[in-house]
């Protein structure tokens, strides 16, 4: 009563028939048209029992509450700062969330964050009007000094970080560079010039091979070749004094999906939660991406977009303060 036409982890493309029969359930990146389940996005097919979804390989960053990102100050406002966060919308860091210090009225705000400064910030809210709020108060959040900035594909960030931070930690250990990876695809690094070149090349390699198996090995080999030294396996979490490693690990804590705000929007949609899947690192890749998809659930008949599930729940947040 059903036939899967494509293997798990194969690339699927819009219009491609993934399965026939009423057995299967469409989810992110797939929809039902009569008897067929069809992909509606370029991605890696993920088969979980009867549920078929796709993991996106491209697409601009869409902010979500609790994302840790790296943004650049675009403008200094009366009430805070506007940030370019590599998304279709800019974001605001309000005065009250800028620092644990008390910021007096009339103080020169550029002393805290000046135009063109980069900072590690966290998304606190995304309203239905796509107004995005940030905070710089919290572990690992800070203005960045020195170093350089790299822009990566935000869909590949879970891979660049790796399961429990293993990939980025591997690159850090091999090159002795400080690296902070923002959910929005912006990456900050700081190290010896020759090592930075190698770290950048390693990150690009992860981006290019992210949809393949065995990337960790491939990158490890690449790093050992380029640096000419063996990389010890990580036994304990890394010892850096800067909080960037805390930051990386905590990225896997996704907002709990039983939050009141989110309940109404997402009923009827299958929202996976974080379970520890010990297998290969693509599981994490899956995990990371499910929560950020903007896929529709096309339960309607005969194509088109059904009335239910207008998608993009996070942009219809009930905590709309504006």
């Amino acid at each position, binding site marked *: 009563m059903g036939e899967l036409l494509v293997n798990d982890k194969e*690339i699927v493309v*819009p*219009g491609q028939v993934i399965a026939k029969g009423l057995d299967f359930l469409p989810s992110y990146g797939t929809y039902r048209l009569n008897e067929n389940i*069809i992909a509606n996005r370029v991605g890696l097919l993920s088969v979980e029992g009867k549920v078929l979804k796709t993991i996106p390989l491209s*697409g601009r960053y869409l902010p979500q509450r609790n994302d840790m990102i790296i943004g650049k100050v675009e403008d200094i406002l009366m009430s805070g700062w506007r940030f370019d966060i590599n998304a*279709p919308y800019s974001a605001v860091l309000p005065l009250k969330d800028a620092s644990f210090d008390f910021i007096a009225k009339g103080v020169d705000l550029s002393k805290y964050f000046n135009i063109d400064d980069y900072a590690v910030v966290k998304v606190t809210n995304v309203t239905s009007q*796509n107004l995005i709020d940030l905070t710089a108060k919290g572990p690992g959040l800070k203005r960045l000094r020195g170093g350089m900035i790299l822009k990566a594909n935000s869909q590949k960030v879970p891979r660049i970080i790796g399961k429990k931070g293993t990939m980025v930690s591997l690159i850090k250990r091999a090159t002795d560079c400080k690296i902070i990876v923002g959910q929005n695809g912006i990456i900050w690094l700081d190290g010896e010039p020759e090592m930075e070149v190698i770290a950048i090349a390693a990150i690009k390699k992860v981006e290019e091979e992210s949809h393949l198996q065995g990337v960790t090995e491939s990158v490890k080999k690449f790093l050992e070749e380029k640096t000419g030294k063996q990389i010890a396996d990580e036994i304990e979490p890394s010892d850096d004094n800067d909080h960037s490693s805390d930051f990386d690990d905590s990225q896997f804590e996704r907002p709990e999906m039983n939050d009141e705000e989110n309940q109404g929007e997402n009923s009827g949609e299958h929202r996976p939660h974080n379970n520890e899947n010990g297998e290969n690192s693509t599981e994490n890749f899956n995990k990371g991406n499910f929560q950020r998809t903007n896929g529709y659930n096309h339960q309607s008949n005969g*194509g088109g977009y059904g009335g239910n599930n207008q998608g993009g729940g996070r942009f219809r947040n009930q905590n709309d303060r504006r």
Partner: protein
Amino acid sequence: MEKFVRPSKRKLDEARAVEAEAGVIKKADGSARFKIGDTEAYAAVYGPRELHPKFLQDPKTGVLRCNYNMLPFSGDGSRVRPGPSRRSKEISLVTEKALLPVIDLREYPNTVVDVFIELPQTDAGSRCAGICAAAIALADAGFIMRDMVAAVSVGSVRGTVVVDLDGAEEHMDENESTDVPVAMIPSTEEITLLQMDGIVAKNDLLNALELVKPALKLIAEKQREALRNRYKVKE
């Protein structure tokens, strides 16, 4: 009556050879190159991104903005003066309308999705090639699209209905040939672009629209292949 033999010796319902590639413009969010015969189009997608000036923004949805342009050395004959022409503006508009039915931008209010189409060389069927390239580029950019949009022209030359007129065929019978560019969503056979040059009777038009469907489905497969190939393991 003598049977019409196409200058290219193609079958009546056969389109020209297609080459399609995705991801050719590195800085774009999605991109493609689509070549059919000697007509070649590049498309790049940038977006969703902020739309300026503000009065163009739509608070209910992102806006799709297509920009079709022929490069100065791409015309059949002398140089084409650079810059938008009435023709290119119209083509930009119908391209946008051809793509909108498969893509939903309501998730990105107040933004724009820019699609730039440039043609380095043309030999008839340029707006169709542009639409094909644009569809691949949008998919390459990760947009949710229920299917590809494939486009090709169908028309009649010397009284015979043929698919994908090339430049030579377009110029035969200057006043008697008809040229109908068509874009279609392959899975549902819905038509998203339909225009015409010439004079045609209703039944002939409907027959032509049936004749062109298989070619469009083949083109859609090429578009999908281009997207898949981008992720193939390179030896």
